[in-house]
C-alpha cells in the first residue's frame, strides 16, 4: 500500500523552491511512480483497465528525459516540459488530467525564478483547478480529486499559517493519503469504473493513489534538498 515515509533531513530551513528543486520534485515523482507502478496497475485492474502504473511510468520517464535537457530553466519551464511529456506519453484519462495539472502549474509559476511558499501553494491550487476543469469531478466521486483537493487545501492553510514549506507539504501529503483512503468505500461516478456501479465499492481509486505519490515527491524533494 502507498504509505507515508519518514522525511530524512527535514528542517524548517528551506523557504523557497528553485528550478533545481522543481527538477528534483519531478525526478522524485518519477522514481516513486516507478517504485509503485505494479501496485498502481493492480489497483486499476480491479476497477479500470489495468494500465495506470504502466502509463504513468511511461509518462514520467519521458518527463525525466525532457527536464534533463533544460539548462538553467525557470521552475515554470520544468513544469511545462513535464506537462508536455505526460500529455504525449501517458494516454488514457490520466495523461490529459496530469498533463493539464502541470500545464496550469507552469502558468501559475510563470515569470518566477524562485517559488515562495505562497507561490507553491498557488501552483498546487492551479493544478487542482486544471484537473477539475478537465475531468469535471468533485470530491466523493472516487477520483484523484478526492486526494488532490484536501491536500491542496491543507497546503494552502499551512502556508497561510506561516508553516515552513516542508512542514506544509508534509501535511498536504498526509491529507492526500487520508483522501485516497476515503475512496475505498465510494461508488465510482466518473471514468471507466463508473460502469461498475456498486461493484466499484471496496477498491482504492488508482488516480488518488498516484496523487499521494505526487505530494510525497514534493515533500521528499524538499527534505532531500
Amino acid at each position, binding site marked *: 500500500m502507498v504509505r507515508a515515509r519518514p522525511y530524512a533531513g527535514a528542517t524548517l530551513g528551506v523557504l523557497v523552491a528553485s528550478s533545481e528543486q522543481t527538477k528534483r520534485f519531478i525526478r522524485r515523482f518519477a522514481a516513486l511512480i516507478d517504485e509503485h507502478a505494479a501496485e498502481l496497475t493492480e489497483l486499476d485492474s480491479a476497477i479500470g483497465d489495468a494500465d495506470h502504473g504502466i*502509463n504513468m511510468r511511461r509518462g514520467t520517464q519521458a518527463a525525466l528525459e525532457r527536464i534533463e535537457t533544460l539548462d538553467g530553466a525557470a521552475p515554470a519551464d520544468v513544469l511545462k516540459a513535464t506537462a508536455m511529456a505526460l500529455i504525449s506519453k501517458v*494516454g*488514457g*484519462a490520466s*495523461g*490529459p488530467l496530469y498533463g493539464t495539472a502541470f500545464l496550469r502549474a507552469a502558468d501559475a509559476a510563470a515569470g518566477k525564478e524562485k517559488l515562495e511558499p505562497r507561490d507553491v501553494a498557488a501552483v498546487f491550487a492551479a493544478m487542482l483547478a486544471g484537473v477539475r476543469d*478537465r475531468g469535471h469531478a468533485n470530491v466523493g466521486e472516487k477520483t484523484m480529486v478526492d486526494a488532490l483537493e484536501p491536500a491542496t487545501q491543507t497546503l494552502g492553510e499551512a502556508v497561510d499559517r506561516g508553516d515552513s514549506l516542508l512542514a506544509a507539504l508534509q501535511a498536504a501529503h498526509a491529507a492526500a493519503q487520508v483522501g485516497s483512503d476515503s475512496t475505498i468505500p465510494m461508488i465510482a461516478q466518473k471514468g471507466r469504473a*463508473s*460502469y461498475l*456501479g456498486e461493484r466499484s465499492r471496496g477498491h482504492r481509486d488508482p488516480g488518488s493513489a498516484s496523487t499521494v505519490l505526487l505530494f510525497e515527491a514534493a515533500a521528499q524533494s524538499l527534505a532531500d534538498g
Partner: protein
Amino acid sequence: MKKLINAIDKIVDESCAGLAAAHPSLVRFNAEPRYVARARATGAGKVVLVSGGGSGHEPLHGGYVGRGMLDAACPGEVFTSPVPDQMYAAGKAVDAGGGVLLIVKNYTGDVMNFELAAEMLGAEGIKTRTVLVADDVAVKDSLYTTGRRGVGNTVFVEKLAGAAAERKLPLEEVERIARKASEAGRSMGLALTSCTVPAKGSPTFELGDGEMEIGIGIHGEPGRERIKLTPADKIVDALYGPVAEDLKLAKGDRVLVMTNGMGSTPLLELYLAHRRVDELLRKAGVTIVDALVGNYITSLDMQGCSITIARVDDELAALWSEPVHTPALRWAC
C-alpha cells in the same frame, strides 16, 4: 494466446502499415505521430473529419478513411485512447481551410485527449468542433456515471457526417448533421466469449460454456447481466428490445440497421441473427432504409454481436446513399 503477432508493441503500427499497403490509392499511414489519412488531399475549403480511439475495433476507424467518410483516423494502443499529439498532427495535416470536426466515442480517456487536441488545434487558428457518440443503451445514462459508451452508431455518424462534408457544407452544418446522426442511433451488444488483449495474453473475463453476457461493451467491460445461452432469436430479442424502447421506435419510422460482429462471429451466424432483426422491425411497421451485416466495429477476437438502429429522415437517408469509398465501406462509386 494464439495470435498473428510479431511483437506486442508493434501490433498497431504493423497493422496500420498493412492497411495502407492494401489500399495505397485510398489511405496513407503516418507512423510518428500515428495516424491514417486519405491518400490524396481533399478539395480546398472542405470540412475535414478526424476520428480515432483505441485499436482492436477494426475496421473502425482507419478502415473508414476515404472519400465520403473520414479524412484521418488516429489509432491508439489496443483499447487505449490515442494521445493529443496524434489528433493535432492529423488535423493539421488534413486541414483544408474549412475547419476540423472531431468525432469522439464517449469514453473518459478519449474525450479528454480529443479535448486537449481541439485546444491545440484552436491555438493554431484551426476552427475545431467536436461531436460525441454515446449510443450504448446497456449503460445507464445518468448523473452518476460517465454516460453511455460510444459503439456501433459511430459507423453511421462517420458515414453521414462524411457525406455532409463532401457536399462542401460549412463546419456548423456538418457538426449539426453529425450531432443529429449521433442522437438518432442506439446500440446494444452481447458476448459469447471474452476477447484477449495481446499485452495481457489471457481472456479479459471468464464466461462459462453455457453462458453469455448481455450488454457488453467493446472492450470487454461488464454488461448488464450474465445469463444462460439461449437460441439466437431470443438473444436478438434481448438486444432489440432495449434499443427499440430507448428509440421509441414507432410504426412508420425509417431506420438504418446494423447487425455487427464482435470479431470472431461467423457471417453465417450474423446473417441468421439479422434475419430476426429484420423480422422484428417489419413486425413493428418500421421501414429499413438500409442494412449492414458484418464486422464493422469489433472487440478483438470476441464472439458475439451488437445491433445498432438509427432513425433517419429524408436528410439523413439522402446522405446515407451518397458515394463512399473507404477500405471497409464502399458504394455508389
